[in-house]
């Protein structure tokens, strides 16, 4: 195995995997590729796999992906540098991410960030000298009803304070296990996490809770008040039911309200709502008009 100097002073990169490691990775890669109709789709999970091996997207990992998928190392690097979860230098054992997007920041995320950054003496995407913790400012992680949120190796630590976060990183640095609020019974290492993200289950899906308090708040409130959705036709309504209208049964004539794209009730006339969906509106608008032209 050869070694070459990295761009960071004192850092070196191994330039190839030994034979056994390569064979193991090749077998894993073959499993990943088999999940997709086209092998290029395997690149994102393969980069997670590389991180599971090396703790970051290493030069030899990039070369491995390129050789396996028959693309250039430049093409692999282009992808690896686009996504924030792919690390360009060796990551700590634990990524500690403090949500500082607007809602969490205002609810206290900024204070948690200030505190952890001061305590650990590192900034965004920097790693403690002991290699335990890489600190990140993260964007919204879809847990706003638990704000402020901290993620450790992408497991949820809900409703944090500077003190709770301080205790958390203290345990992590001391090598003690920590348990997320909603997640597995303990946080796994960065490499173990990366292997799961490559699509190799670690058998821990049944650990932990199904939901936290805020997630089921409406569920519980509805039950307390006897609020239910309308019963399915043919199902016996339950005794608790109060607000349900009687089922009207199938009535096809009433069920034919189909908005046309471009009509006022279609989304095609509305401005885009989110990056996630707006293109659909444009798409159907165009298609509907194409169809209209054809018919």
């Amino acid at each position, binding site marked *: 195995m050869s070694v070459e100097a990295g761009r960071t002073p004192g850092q070196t990169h191994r330039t190839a995997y030994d034979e056994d490691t390569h064979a193991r990775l090749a077998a894993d890669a073959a499993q990943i590729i088999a999940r997709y109709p086209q092998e290029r789709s395997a690149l994102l999970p393969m980069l997670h796999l590389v991180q599971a091996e090396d703790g970051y997207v290493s030069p030899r990992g990039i070369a491995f992906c390129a050789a396996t998928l028959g693309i250039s190392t430049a093409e692999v690097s282009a992808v690896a540098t686009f996504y924030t979860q792919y690390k360009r230098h060796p990551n700590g054992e634990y990524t500690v991410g403090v949500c500082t997007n607007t809602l969490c920041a205002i609810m206290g995320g900024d204070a948690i960030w200030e505190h952890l950054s001061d305590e650990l003496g590192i*900034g965004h995407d920097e790693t403690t000298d002991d290699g335990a913790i890489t600190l990140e400012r993260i964007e919204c992680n879809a847990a706003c009803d638990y704000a402020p949120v901290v993620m450790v190796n992408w497991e949820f630590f809900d409703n944090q304070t500077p003190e709770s976060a301080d205790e958390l990183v203290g345990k992590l640095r001391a090598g003690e296990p920590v348990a997320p609020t909603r997640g597995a019974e303990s946080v796994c290492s960065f490499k173990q996490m990366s292997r799961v993200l490559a699509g190799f289950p670690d058998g821990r899906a049944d650990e932990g809770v199904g939901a936290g308090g805020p997630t089921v708040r409406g569920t519980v409130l509805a039950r307390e008040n006897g609020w239910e959705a309308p019963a399915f036709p043919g199902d016996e309504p339950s005794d608790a039911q109060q607000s349900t209208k009687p089922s009207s049964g199938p009535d096809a004539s009433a069920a034919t309200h189909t908005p046309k794209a471009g009509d006022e009730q279609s989304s095609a006339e509305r401005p885009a709502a989110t990056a*996630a969906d707006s293109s659909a509106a444009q*798409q159907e608008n165009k298609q509907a008009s194409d169809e209209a032209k054809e018919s």
Partner: protein
Amino acid sequence: MATTLAPVLTAHWDADRSWTLQTYEDNGGYRGLRRALNMQAPDVVTMVKDSGLRGRGGAGFPTGMKWGFLPAPDGGPRYLVVNADESEPGTCKDIPLMMASPQHLIEGVIITSYAIGCHHAFIYVRGEVLHVYRRLLRAVEEARAAGYVGTDILGSGYDLEITVHAGAGAYICGEETALLDSLEGLRGQPRLKPPFPAVAGLYARPTVVNNVESIASVPGIVVGGADWFKQMGTERSTGHGLFSLSGHVTNPGQYEAPLGITLRELLEMAGGMRGGRALKFWTPGGSSTPIFTAEHLDVPLDYESVGAAGSMLGTRALQIFDETTSVVRAVTRWTEFYKHESCGKCTPCREGTFWLAQVLQRIERGQGTSADIDLLLDLCDNILGRAFCALGDGATSPITSAVQYFREEFEAGCHTPADVLFPPERSALFDYRPRSGAQLAGAH
């Protein structure tokens, strides 16, 4: 009687081991699939069309109609891709759904795939939710073991594979064509349209891309029928939806209700504003939807009413901020998010979000100039409608709406820092002493 909650997807989220197939079936799960497999596929599409279900990921386009846009089968593959890349700031409904009840999604995927003639479906989940990914992988395993996934499903002769794919951190991949590029192993950048995914989507084949909650709503529609679904909601915004309350409310969380419920009703259910403080501003559907104020408390939260009031229903991510909150600070932070997440493909968004952040940061520091508000609005005008995808449009929404409702706060940014006008410790949920003169803006 005021509108009440209507738990359908959420009905059993608090059950013991709610995420397992056993619990899901004990509560009526997979009846929809059995019924669908006894129907002709086009009839399933018609049923969903008739239900009026509209996309729950933000744009609200009729789901059944979207399915109907696929061209006639040509013998080649067609795909269903579930957009589980929930990343819109404030949006927190799909992730808890997949954590608590992933089988709801899996059953919806199977029914939808059957309806559109797909034999390989994909669930693209963001990579930053490890346990949700574990649960999804397990849910597919369990469904396969029960004969719901694989070959000859329940003896119907219908075959389906489901691949759960983890992303790697990029908001833009929630845009459906960027998601498809990402799923193909590329940088997640939006595609030029046309062609649209229905014609040339994944691997240039006909593809339906739907949001998690949309797909998870399908089994109920198939069991209950279109009319059952239409008993909930309004005439044009039918059915149930997850309303996610977060921020300065007493009891934040997920509230599943008929579309058309109001924030006033939801706030009452959530115990009101924290500490009895006054509501200042809120988003109806994530940070990309123009903000609302207390004057909008009675706007019915359906697609039409929210649109008529000047915003968008979006993802029903109700981020609620009280009177202690600096709107300048909130908007600046959202703008930094858009700058960070801009994919760089088109100039208006890449350059525009950068300059928006520069201007807002100096206003937040109290160092704005008298021309800055007009400059902000001019920048927004040069992004809105000129960007390659909706990310750029979304970046302008919080700014233009905040200037509309709170212009004086931006004007104050010419002389007074936001953290002097609105000390951040008053907004936080815990007591702390902020660093003096802390400037966090633009740290990454």
